[in-house]
């Protein structure tokens, strides 16, 4: 009788022999980038389960199941994107197509979008909601990277391309602001400006870019705040922020409860039995304020750990950006890392009262498929850049 073990051993040997001379799948994966992402996903699953204990949800397991499904689907999407060479995005027609598609989706949102809390942010397709702004963030990074890379150091005729792309981006920003989704506008503006600064776009050109962005951003803000009276809450949020900034005993409902939930975590976290957050005191506790849940359940140690993991991710993303072989890849790697890292930090700053409430999710952690999938797409593209950069 043939020993079973030896049979498998021979099979493995055959496989390795066949694979010799080419890269094995695990050799192409940037584990230093994958590790923080997976850690954050684990954080997310735990946090979503805890947040699901709130009375508004029928079962915490249902939320957890949804989260696990999102992670798995996001992983598939991410792996797919990691297999697409990022140079294929460096195509004028592709750039134009995705820009126009993004604009079309945003315009369409005004007509067929689901209205939630006075904003049209999602489509309902096959009983699933799709939030285009989450994906548009990636498109903006791609388009901006292309624009900067194409126009960098070139003469005036190509300067026209930059203008066109800037205009497209500005239209995108205005449309998102009109929905309104100020959180995304803020992140896009911050990321765009960071990319311009990092790329050291020439003074004349940078003035053009910065002026255009700031003018349009400001215009959008003015339109939304003063023409549409319903959106005065933005000013109210600034007032709340000024009241609660550096003040522990805040009277504002959302922040004061957020503070109390965070405070009850102490150093090592509060046991779920004694926790406050399952009593429905937090608004949007599985999305915008999920950091509070982590802070309560895992304490100061957990918060420090979470921040370290995000820093790890940012550091690794920036590392890829620094060592990428071409400028376009560098800009994409920087933009995607910064858009995720900045969004995460902004979310935590909001939850801790260090920034006005914006309504953005915590990447990889919040409950919400669109946020997770778009983050996974970004990670996939980063992986591809990393693979191209460090390939032997």
């Amino acid at each position, binding site marked *: 009788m043939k020993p079973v073990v030896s049979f498998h051993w021979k099979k493995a040997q055959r496989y390795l022999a066949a694979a010799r001379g080419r890269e094995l799948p695990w050799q192409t994966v940037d584990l230093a980038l994958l590790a923080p992402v997976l850690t954050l996903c684990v954080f997310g699953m735990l946090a979503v389960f805890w947040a699901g204990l709130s009375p508004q949800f029928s079962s915490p397991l249902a939320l957890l199941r949804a989260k696990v499904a999102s992670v798995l689907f996001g992983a598939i999407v991410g792996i797919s994107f990691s297999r697409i060479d990022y140079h294929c995005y460096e195509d004028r027609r592709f750039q134009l197509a995705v820009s126009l598609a993004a604009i079309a989706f945003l315009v369409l949102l005004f007509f067929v979008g689901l209205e939630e809390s006075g904003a049209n942010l999602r489509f309902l397709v096959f009983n699933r909601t799709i939030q285009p702004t989450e994906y548009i963030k990636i498109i903006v990074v791609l388009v901006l990277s292309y624009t900067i890379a194409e126009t960098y150091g070139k003469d005036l005729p190509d300067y026209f391309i930059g203008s066109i792309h800037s205009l497209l981006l500005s239209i995108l920003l205005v449309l998102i602001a009109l929905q309104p989704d100020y959180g995304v506008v803020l992140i896009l503006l911050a990321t765009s400006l960071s990319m311009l*600064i990092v790329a050291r776009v*020439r003074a004349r050109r940078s003035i053009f870019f910065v002026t255009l962005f700031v003018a349009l951003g400001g215009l959008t803000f003015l339109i939304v705040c003063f023409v549409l009276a319903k959106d005065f809450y933005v000013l109210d949020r600034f007032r709340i922020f000024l009241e609660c900034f550096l003040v522990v005993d805040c009277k504002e409902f959302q922040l004061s409860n957020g503070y109390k939930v965070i*405070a009850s975590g102490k150093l090592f976290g509060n046991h779920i039995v004694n926790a406050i957050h399952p009593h429905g005191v937090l608004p949007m506790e599985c999305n915008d304020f999920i950091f509070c849940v982590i802070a309560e359940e895992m304490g100061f140690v957990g918060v420090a750990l979470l921040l370290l993991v995000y820093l790890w991710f940012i550091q690794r993303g920036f590392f890829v950006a620094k060592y990428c072989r071409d400028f376009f890849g560098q800009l994409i790697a920087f933009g995607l890392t910064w858009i995720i890292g900045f969004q995460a930090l902004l979310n935590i700053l909001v939850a801790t009262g260090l920034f006005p409430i914006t309504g953005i999710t915590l990447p990889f952690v919040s409950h919400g498929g669109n946020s997770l999938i778009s983050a996974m797409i970004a990670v996939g593209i980063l992986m591809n850049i990393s693979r191209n950069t460090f390939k032997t």
Partner: protein
Amino acid sequence: MKILAFGKRSRSDLSGRESFNNHVDWCFYIALALCVSILLKTSLLQLTDLLGNKAKKTKQKHLREELLLPVRGEIVDRNGVLLATSLRFQTVAMDPFKVRSLSSGKRREEFEKLESILGISVNELEKLSKRKVAMIPVERAVTVESASKIKEYRRKGVLPGIELVSEQVREYPWGDYTKPILGVVRGSRDILLAHKNGRKPVSPHWLKGHFPWHLYSCISGATPQRGIGGIEQIFDPWLAGTADHYVHHLDRHLNPMDGFTRRLGEGESPCSLVLTIDIHLQRFVARLVQEKLSEMDAILGIAVIMDAHSGETLAAYSASLDRGQVVSDDNQVFTSSFEPGSVAKPLMMLHAFELGFVSEDDRFDCNLPTRVGNKTYKDERRYTRHLSPKEILAVSSDSGMIQIVRRIISNKGVRLSADTLSFLRRCGLGESMSINHTAISRSTLPSPERWTAITPSQLAIGYEFEASPFHLVSAYAGFANGGKLVRPMLVRKVLDKDGLPVKEFSQKRPLKPCFSPRYATLIHDYLKAVVSMKGGTGRRAAIEGLDIAGKTGTSRRLVHGKYSRKSHNATFVGILPVEENLTLVIGVFFQDVKKGSDYAGVVCAPVFREIAMYLIERGIK
């Protein structure tokens, strides 16, 4: 690793890649700085005690427990006619302390909003807000639209100090006719408070500031309706059900948030009751008693109709006369008890027959005054001949009854008290009468320690012990059904929310005879003579063609420790064969009948006759 340079760059600048890397590093330092600031703020919250126990209080503050009682069960009669039902409605209530704490402008604004919703003038609302109570209802039973408007305002935090609470009200479609048996409920129109942690309920005037709803179980949402008296009380646990226990999570304005309500415990749904009462008969009896009560100027009138075999009570009504006004009493039909007078004579005669000291052929000289101890018993009527036991009952001769009792005394001696009391207990007297297995009606017998020489004689003519109408009707049912003691029943069955029977009541089977069937039948025959025989005291109850049996009883009322000559209790308990298998015992009782109409045969027997006529004409459904 080969690092590629790209594009043109100015001479003054660093190389493009170095510059890029420097800027990226700066971005990382920004991220690091943000992380440090977050850690600082978090450490301020988590590692210091700046918030104190506010975190714990937050948990408590944003929870409100509510006990939501279901709508109390319905009560229907034997034919399914609705006798009692409960309605739930919304009440707008005001916390005057909280409203007064608002600025006058805001208060005015709030009152104007309320005026537009409820139509109550601002001045009236101002008056209400000056009251020094914790909570005051502004308007009860508001419309659904008004309630939803107020709810919406509350959600926005626009109407501080205004609460929307749900209450229940108990409706009795047949009003006073059913009040004596159904009783009433308390609590339907009060906003009650109960503390959730088992502490004492806080009296409203202790509350100085705003009303701390979040600390209390919001009982008002389930204002408990407790039955006080009658069926409502006896069957309260069935009718009330138990509350669903909810926990509401409150928003910033301390209003329950939609979708944030968790049910901690599920209550038992209330049951409905099917009574044995026939409401049309009840109404007829009620009207009759009310009419006769005012005619005779008595203080209390009671009528009870019971099936002699099943114990089902078809009607039970009591009314009293209060300052010339007839009032339906809540509970007197169950709770009143009095000395029955001559109605007790058949019982003692049956006892004498059972003991064998009297026979049907015995004759007694009832013209002779009979002396027992220091008391002399003498009939007012004169008789031409010696009376048989049957005639003694028919004419209700006290002297004859005393002579019978003396025979027992002379034979039994010292064991008399024990024997007599034991016999009376067998007849259901001397102990609380159970109605649907719940002791409610009272009867007292003299204790053996207080037994005197005249006690047996007094017992024989219906004094020195008390019995309720249900006791007497139940004992007389024994004559009609061959000596079996049936317990009165008012409830036939208990139905669950789906209409399926949860419990069905019936007599405990098999019924044991409480006294000899032979003598029970004999006494039944004697009682027929009371109605049919010439000179019988119950002649006015007779209906031609019907074998009606019955006994009148007139007893003096005990007023200030002495038997009054002016005030009497008049009783008639009759047995009416309605159909072949249906024999009804009808008891009619009037208390404090004034002189001139003091004979029960004159007062109560006609009432019995009218009821009997109605029953014969209409039949029993």
